[in-house]
């Protein structure tokens, strides 16, 4: 819930208050969707919408989204989602299911993602990201009649590489090359040792190895944090197991 609140406030729009339905145009650079306000009685047009008022005093959120029929690369408009209203006499609990024209029978229908006779894997990845984001905000009941059969392994490895790894690799290689050039120049100007002789030195070789390993393993600052947290937790757990032995050594 706080994610949706945060997203609303972070946009350059007038501040949204809980439970109020205000129109506010927003544009997203990547997806080209615009999100005007939602009216409860939706006409039968495009719209995957998500008002999600919780009945019993959880933090109420008014997430108003409405997708316009956009002629995307895939060319298929999103589909109206079924809106059910719970008649419990409390706050209206609107239950939504994730629906998308290309999500057929619990998996993505690859035929609908064709671009020039080939499957547009980028669009498949985008669609799956959207689906998971949706379900994170509005968890759905798992059903035996309507199981999710999607298997991420149908997306080939090179699609991931091309889209996510290669641009990052290009960036990192570029940075490494620039830094490497200037470091070599700098060391040469200081010590007079040329590039070829620098490479022959053991210390330089070690530094190079460390630099390459570091760049490969640590991509972002968050990685270090996650790794550190994991190591801390494991160490702490280890200490808890050893605690009973500390008692013994203290006595001796």
């Amino acid at each position, binding site marked *: 819930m706080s994610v949706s609140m945060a*997203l609303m406030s972070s946009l350059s729009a007038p501040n949204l208050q809980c439970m109020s339905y205000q129109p506010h145009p927003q544009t997203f650079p990547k997806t080209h969707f615009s999100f005007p306000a939602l009216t409860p009685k939706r006409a039968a047009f495009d719209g995957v919408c998500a008002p999600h008022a919780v009945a019993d005093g959880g933090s109420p959120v008014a997430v108003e989204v409405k997708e316009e029929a956009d002629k995307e690369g895939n060319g298929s408009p999103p589909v109206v989602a079924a809106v059910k209203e719970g008649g419990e006499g409390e706050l209206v609990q609107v239950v939504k299911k994730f629906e998308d024209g290309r999500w057929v029978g619990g998996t993505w229908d690859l035929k609908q993602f064709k671009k020039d006779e080939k499957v547009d894997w980028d669009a498949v*990845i985008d669609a799956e990201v959207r689906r998971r984001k949706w379900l994170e905000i509005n968890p759905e*009941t*798992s059903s035996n009649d309507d199981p999710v059969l999607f298997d*991420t392994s149908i997306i080939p490895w090179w699609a991931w590489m091309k889209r996510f790894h290669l641009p990052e690799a290009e960036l990192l290689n570029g940075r490494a090359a620039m830094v490497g050039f200037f470091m070599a120049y700098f060391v040469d100007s200081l010590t007079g040792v040329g590039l070829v002789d620098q490479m022959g030195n053991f210390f330089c070789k070690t530094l190079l190895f460390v630099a390459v390993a570091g760049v490969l393993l640590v991509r972002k600052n968050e990685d270090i944090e996650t790794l550190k947290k994991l190591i801390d937790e494991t160490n702490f757990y280890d200490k808890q*197991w050893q*605690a009973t032995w500390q008692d013994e050594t203290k006595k001796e």
Partner: protein
Amino acid sequence: MASQLLHHRILHRGTAPASAPIDRRNLRPPTTCAAAVTPSLHRKLRVAVIGGGPAGSSAAESLASGGVETFLFERNTSSAKPCGGAIPLCMIEEFDLPLSLVDRKVTEMTIVSPSNITVDFGKTLMPHEFIAMVRREVLDSYLRSRAQSAGADVKTALVTEIRTPSTTNAPYKVIYTEEGSRRELVVDVVVGSDGANSRVAKAIEAGEYSCAIAFQERIKLPDEKMEYYENLAEMYLGDDVSPDFYAWVFPKCDHVAVGTGTVCSKQNIKMYQRGIRDRVKHKINGGKVIKVEAHPIPEHPRPVRVRGRVALVGDAAGYVTKCAGEGIYFAAKSGRMCGEAIVKASEGGERMITEEDLRREYLRKWDAEYVTTYKVLKLLESVFYGSNVGREALVELCGDEYVQRMSLDSYMYKRLASGNRWEDLKMAARTVGSFWRTQIVGREMERLKL
């Protein structure tokens, strides 16, 4: 006599066959508190086992069959303890449990990711392999009656106090209420198997541990819905059902247990329970809640597990694994190990034992055998249950047969399954790949709305 022992070992070191490892621990010179040989009692050693669950009953059985005078205290012999009720195959073998105790043999497990992607475990199970679901009251009373037949004196009583002695060799006093009257028992050794809120632990100032809370509702389903859960257990992952653990639907004898657990967010447990009820809404539609129960589950061992001649076993010691939350097998195993340790150290109840004996024969053996298991499971839990990224990666990985076989084997037999190196490497590569992909998806998800 200790020096003769030492001499004997040193002499034989040179002539012992190369394959026999020398027990270096016993080569250490004895400590100053005269651990060498304790005087022989002119009576049997007296041990009180507080708590008659799987841990206590196994301890009492080992003690009684080893010739020690054993007293087993259980305050309530008929209560159904809140528990998942799943026991691994190795427990049935190791503890000679009759199959009549098993209500249900679960041969299929489904794991559901936050985005409802499901994976079915169980393709690799052999026909004779299953996860046994038992009713705790049935299992517990069976183990208690076995302890009784071995010679333990089972007392239906509530232990109210354990008085620790002021001098080293003075006995312990157990004060209890039996049939309304207050009684006392003087014993030499106390085994604390009284669960998460252990009174014995408090008596020896064993320290606190953090607990998770497990909450579950037992729901009686209509027959056609129950058919789906005939041999199937389900595990659900997601922030809506638990921030750091999983939610489950386990079939029991004639109903299902739907529950969830958490450590870091205990005040929201009701919200998570609603979450899991919503996730399985269609599958439990029309069911009636027959019982609601909750229980604390220890998250890690207590700072002190042995002090004086008191040893903690089972939940009282904190032997619940991470990741699976399994406690029954480890409780019974630790009870047995402690009982056997006392029997060995006292030479069949003939000698008094010391704290060092308990540490050497029970704690050290236990840690040597199981610490790695616990640590590995802790690592898996931190990595795979901590965030949606990890959970999706887990479900992706579990689709692979090799992973399924390895995890089921290690669960059922409590040993590191023997895979081949090549498959292990492939599994490692697949893990890295899955994580990379789910991390990318996670990053894209964050970018989408922001």
